[in-house]
């Protein structure tokens, strides 16, 4: 009987956090009697099957001791394949993959596409949902086009012309889910200089107005068994006076997002909470939500703005499901159910009925 697999790590700035999420998921599945295969994606993008009982520290130096190399093969009979006895290939039997790979190719549609082509079921967003979730500029554009409130965003590069809004600016990598590489700058030339020199902005950058007065509000959304929203969270900043919620606030010195300081549920007026819920449901539809996502808002006491969507959130946002309580094992079971019952890929050749081919004549005549 194939068992679930948990995929974590990946060649992403969020590799380490992803290992934490993955190991939590493996343990939670074991605790409800569903032992899982642990699939580690290394910083150098190689796959390994590892012992599910490893600790986070075992991954500091790279693939842990005893990791056995596997490959992800697409095509019929595809999936994860290891080497068995006498050099023969040994398929890793998998029911579905719980995708815990934050950021980078695990969250931008790359891994999703590979798993689709390999015929492996997986949790979380499909290719399109992942791609729009990790592209902050495209996501904000879609939100604005749907008439939902959000901050204006502009593409930033070394020679980009100033946007239609004034500074100070908050500068972010265009693709990426964490706080890595986010900086607040006073003026546009500084933002341009940052785009030229910062390693985090080399694959694309964006800028938006910096709202010092706004707090974050987060809510988790899941799509299965039916669309459901978690309690609303207000994360608290620990590094006094820092302009933004930093990477260290979220991840260093704890078990990841699950142990960061917060107000849960957030102390906000009922009408604001209702508005959060209305917008979150609309965004779930807009971004073809699958699995469990976390939607982040900015709220300054009067105005509520959509900020970012995390389609594979830290700790899979398990800590937000407090009212009514949803155990992590239950959340994972529902994710796996959805993975196996709701296909992630829909390929269609409807309309390609051959009529264009029949009437085409010779290829040479088209080139002439």
């Amino acid at each position, binding site marked *: 009987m194939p068992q679930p697999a948990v995929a974590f790590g990946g*060649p992403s700035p969020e590799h380490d956090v992803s290992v934490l999420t993955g190991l939590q998921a493996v343990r939670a599945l074991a605790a409800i009697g569903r032992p899982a295969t642990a699939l580690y994606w*290394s*910083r*150098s*993008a*190689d796959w390994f099957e590892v012992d599910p009982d490893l600790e986070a520290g075992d991954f500091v130096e*790279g*693939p842990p001791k005893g990791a056995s190399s596997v490959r992800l093969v697409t095509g019929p009979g595809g999936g994860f394949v290891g080497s068995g006895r006498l050099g023969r290939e040994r398929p890793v039997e998998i029911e579905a993959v719980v995708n815990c790979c934050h950021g980078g190719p695990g969250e931008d549609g790359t891994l999703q596409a590979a798993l689709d082509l390999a015929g492996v079921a997986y949790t979380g967003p499909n290719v399109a949902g992942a791609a729009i979730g990790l592209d902050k500029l495209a996501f904000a554009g879609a939100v604005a086009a749907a008439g939902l409130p959000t901050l204006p965003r502009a593409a930033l590069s070394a020679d980009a012309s100033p946007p239609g809004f004034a500074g100070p600016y908050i500068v972010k990598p265009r693709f990426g889910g964490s706080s890595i590489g986010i900086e607040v700058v006073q003026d546009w030339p500084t933002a341009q200089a940052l785009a*030229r*020199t*910062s*390693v985090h902005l*080399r694959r694309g950058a964006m800028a938006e107005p910096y709202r010092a007065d706004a707090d974050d509000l987060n809510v988790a959304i899941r799509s299965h068994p039916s669309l459901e929203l978690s309690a609303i969270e207000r994360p608290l900043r620990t590094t006094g006076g820092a302009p933004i919620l930093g990477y260290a606030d979220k991840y260093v010195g704890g078990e990841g997002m699950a142990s960061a300081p917060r107000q849960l549920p957030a102390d906000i007026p009922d009408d604001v909470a209702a508005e959060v819920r209305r917008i979150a449901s609309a965004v779930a539809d807009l971004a073809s939500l699958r699995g469990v996502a976390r939607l982040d808002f900015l709220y300054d006491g009067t105005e509520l703005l959509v900020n970012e969507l995390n389609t594979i959130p830290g700790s899979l946002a398990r800590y937000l499901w407090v009212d009514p309580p949803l155990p992590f094992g239950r959340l994972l079971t529902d994710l796996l159910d959805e993975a196996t019952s709701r296909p992630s890929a829909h390929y269609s050749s409807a309309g390609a009925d051959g009529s264009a081919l029949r009437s085409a004549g010779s290829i040479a005549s088209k080139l002439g």
Partner: protein
Amino acid sequence: MNAAATAAWLVAGGLAGLRWLRVAQAEHYLPGAATRFSYRWWWGSGPENRLFVIAAKIGAVPAYLDYPVGALTGAAALAAGPIGLGLKGRTSRLAWTRRMRTLAAVWVALEAAVVGVGAVAGWTLGAAALAALLAPVLVDVACWMTAPLERRLAGKWVTQAADKLARAHPTVVAITGSYGKTTTKAYVAHLVAPSRSVVATPRSFNNRAGLARSVNEHFAPGTEVFVAEMGTYGPGEIAEMCAWVAPAVAVITAIGPVHLERMGSEDRIVTAKAEILETAGTVVLNVDDPRLAALADTAAAQGKKVYRCSAGGVVADVVADVVVLDEGAQRVVVVAGERVAVIDRDDAMAPTNIACAVAAALGVGIDLDVIARALPTLPTPDHRLAARPHQATGATLLDDTFNSNPAGAARALSALAQAAPEGRKVVVTPGMVELGHRQHEENAAFAMAAVRMGAEVVVVGRTNRRALVDGVTRAGGRAVLVDDRDAGVRWVGQHVGPGDAVLFENDLPDTYP
């Protein structure tokens, strides 16, 4: 009776084989190392081991003549020694890797062949004794025989690594030098990291297999800059690595008498290191060494972009592009005549390493202002002159145990002087190795310099004991002799206190006497 004596020699030979296999592993399976080390251990590590080896050789004579009685004592002497070279080891443990198992199997086959031929000729006991005494030589023969096979096996990993690099085509910075490689590599990675995604080879992995392993295990697709450290034990090795790593920027940090034992002469070292420059379009050279200054001129004549790096003021007629001046506790970084940064730190960073790293970062295309901002936070690699307080005694400990070259040792001494201007100063060292014909002279000179600046010298082990004691005595001091590093640490614990400073200079694996 004969059978018992034969068995005793076979057991003694087996134990000897384990010892010399471990030495071969610690010395990177270089053919010749086991025999060289066996000579060093038996004859150069104290009177008791000389007695044992003489007893073993005399005891082998009755065995050759087929008299079992005397032969037993010879086997016992061989099995017992050399005293100090353990079977499994403490610091440099015997690891049964795939390569070690192959080597051991070939060695067992060679031993069996010697004994088997003897048995056929009716000379079993004599052959068993001969095979046992030849154990280190046969280990070397096994190393030599397996070398082509190992090269072929490593080739598979090299191909994989080369493919990975070719797909990602990063800008490669290749760094070599007799010393300063690992530190400079860490500096380059630090200066490049704010602006580009960068991967550097970990620790001191710097040969063909180590480089391939670094790429296969640590290189992420999409990495923009790869910093590769390259070491060499002979001509052709660096050229071979450059063929598949394809450096865009090549750096030579320094030339010195390191690995002289294997390389022969410093001129041969320069030639072997210069291979790194051949395919790179940008070269970075420490021109304080006139031989590297000459290479810089050659490279410039070939139309390469050349960065000349210097600690300033040594070579008068050379204008350097990057100069790092040592002004007391400060390092002042000067690029193209402009002061761009001041590093205000009291650790003894070598100015030329900093200069080479700055030039390499410029060669990669990093903005000078980004480099200048990153300079004050250059990392201090572990065990390379890192200073820390000693909990038990309150003294300052200077850990320079990864250094093994005379220039670095001299810099460490000046750091020691600064760390305890008033207090007691102690140097704990087994001395430096692989310095060929200069080993005695260089170690004696180091010990002399230590005593002249007011330090006491604790000599660890026997490898360089004579040279170090010679230097200490010539400078009018008295050396403290200890058997191993642990004994040195204990001595320190009993003899220093607050305000004092202790320099641990170099460390040798326990395969050295």
